[in-house]
Each structure stands twice: as structure tokens, then as C-alpha cells.
């Protein structure tokens, strides 16, 4: 049962990429030899397809595109719904709905902006290098110009 798996699911097994006997000098330990062969085969493979990086970029781009599409819409809808509910509970119609509608637009834009610029998550989180750059002091003056 284990043997009859469809072969499409898999990349080429390491043992097939580097058939034993390819290397001339043979270290005594078969495991060391195998390790060397795997390394060689991996290096070969990386050399043959230099587009590996592009693929992961494409994957990330796809993921990002799928993410931000819905972000704005849901933010506005959920915030407005929340405003409507607040109005019902506290009898403040229509102010809660109006206020939260605009807050929802702002929150949605914020989320999209952060997703696109790569600074994910709320303002509280800053990537370590950006925080260091901001605290240097001199940088702000440069940016103001």
C-alpha cells in the first residue's frame, strides 16, 4: 500500500538524483558518502534552476493579493454592523453607526496599507531594524527635508 503511492506527489527522490557509484573517491563510511552525494545533487539542482527565488516571490504575491482583496470590505461591513448593534443597545441612533462606519473605513485602509507595505499588525509592532533607525534621531531630520 505504501509502495503504490502516485508518483506525482513527489519530487525526485535523492537516491535517484545521485546514483551510487557516481563519485570516484569513496570515503569508508557509507553515510558520509551519501551525505556528500546529496549535497552535490542539491547544488546541481540549485544551479540548474535559478528561478527558485522567483517562485517563492510569486507565492507570496499571490498570498498577499488574496489577502488584501477582502480586507477593506469586511472592515467597513463589520464596523458598520457593530455601530448598528451599539445603537440598538444604547439608543444612540444614528451616531454609533455613522462614527463606526468611518472608523471602519480607516481601519480597513490601515490593514490594507500595512499588508502592502509589509509592516503587518498593529502600530505597536515594529521590525527591530526600523525601530533602531527611528531612534537614531538624525534620521527624522533627513526625512523632513
Amino acid at each position: 500500500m505504501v509502495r503504490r503511492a502516485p508518483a506525482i506527489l513527489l519530487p525526485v527522490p535523492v537516491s535517484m538524483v545521485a546514483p551510487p557509484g557516481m563519485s570516484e573517491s569513496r570515503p569508508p563510511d557509507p553515510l558520509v558518502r551519501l551525505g556528500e552525494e546529496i549535497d552535490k545533487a542539491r547544488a546541481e539542482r540549485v544551479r540548474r534552476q535559478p528561478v527558485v527565488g522567483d517562485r517563492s516571490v510569486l507565492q507570496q504575491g499571490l498570498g498577499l493579493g488574496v489577502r488584501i482583496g477582502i480586507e477593506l470590505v469586511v472592515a467597513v461591513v463589520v464596523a458598520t454592523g457593530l455601530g448598528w448593534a451599539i445603537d440598538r443597545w444604547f439608543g444612540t441612533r444614528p451616531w454609533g453607526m455613522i462614527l463606526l462606519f468611518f472608523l471602519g473605513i480607516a481601519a480597513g485602509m490601515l490593514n490594507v496599507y500595512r499588508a502592502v507595505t509589509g509592516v503587518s499588525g498593529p502600530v505597536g509592532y515594529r521590525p527591530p531594524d526600523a525601530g533602531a533607525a527611528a531612534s537614531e534621531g538624525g534620521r527624522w531630520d533627513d526625512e523632513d527635508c
Partner: protein
Amino acid sequence: MAIEIRPLEQFTIERLIPFHIGGVDISYTNAAFLMTAAVVLITALILLGTRKHALIPGRWQSLAEMSYEFVADMVETNVGHGGREFFPFVFTLFMFILFANFLGLIPYSYTVTSQIIVTFALAAVVFIGVTIVGIVKHGFHFLRLFVPQGVPAVLLLLLVPIELLSYCIRPFTLSIRLFANMLAGHTMLAIFGGFAASIGLLGIFPLGINILLVALEVLVAALQAYVFAILTCLYLSDAINLH
């Protein structure tokens, strides 16, 4: 002659084993069955795949190892080293959604993730879990997540509600994204399938489109599981790597 097209019929929940306790309907449904199937298949893949511990992995072992490495990489790059302890959670989440999506692509089966309650429950677990992790790790300091640094106090009155709102919206975007994608994709498949069945010989064109759509759905199934998992990682990263 006329074939009735009911593209939404596929989302009907059927009770396989009716079961009521004190007026609460907890029947074993087709959705529950597909969830069970996903869990059983994932467990089987991991357990059988890693049974032999072969140095040169066989087919199943490399499948299990590849899924492990994929998620481990994702957690490592997005959460950092502090995220290792959350790897089991993210891995479970990713595999469950992936298998649920893929099982839903099998004809006559059922797409669990096309039910908003399922995706919302998953997203709520992520949301509540991340909030608890943040509070446990940082205590009261966790609330600084909503307070931007270096902003005048007047603006804080406006910015804090926006931050709070954008935080509270997370479970909704997370769940609606997955749910809407699966629902729309499967509805579209059913509509084009209905066209193909109802217009006779010309039906070969919608059939061709359907073949392409199935390929697209395979992509969407994997991509949505990936997006769900990576967003979970990013949210965890917010809670753990607080400034």
C-alpha cells in the same frame, strides 16, 4: 429535457446519524463526517509517513517531511524563534484546512470550509488564542499594541479606536476570506457543470471552462490554507514580538 440547476444544493447539511440531547441537535452530519475524514487522513499521513524513520525517505515519508518543513519554515520566518512552541498549532490548522479544502474538491463530497461557522470557529480560536498569548507574555503591557508611539495625545483619541477596531476585525476577515473563496469557487463549478449538462452538444465549452476552474480551485484550496496559516503566524508574531 430541462435540467434544473441548483448550484447551492451542494452546501446542504444532511444528518447522517440524527442525535438530540435535551433539544439540542448534535447529529453527526456530512460536514462532521468530512471533518473526521480530514483528521483521520492527516493523522494517517503523519503516523504512517514517519513510521519507518528511513534515512532516505520514501514517498509518504517525504510527503510528511515536506509538509512539516513547509510549516516549520513559515513559522520560523514569520514569528521568529519564539514561535517554535506554536508550531504544532499552526501545523494542525494548516493541515486541517488544506485537507478539508482538498477533500471538498472530490465530486459528491462536502466542503467543510464553505460553512461560515466552521471558518469562524477556526478564526475565533486563533483570535482568542493570540490575545491570550499576548496577555500571558506581556501582561498589561499588551495593551500598548493599540497605542502608536510618538503620537500627540489628541490624535490618540482617534487612533486608539481605529487600532482597536482593526484588531477586532481580524477574526472576521480571516473567516470570511476562506469561506467566501470556497463558497464562490464551488458554486461556480456547479453552475458551469449545470450549463454543460443542459445545453447538449454545446456543453463541451462550459465543460472545458470547468476543467480550468477545477485547476483554479486546486490552487485556491492550497492558497487559502496557506494564507490562513501565514496570517495566524503574523498575528502570533504581533503578540510575541511586541515592542
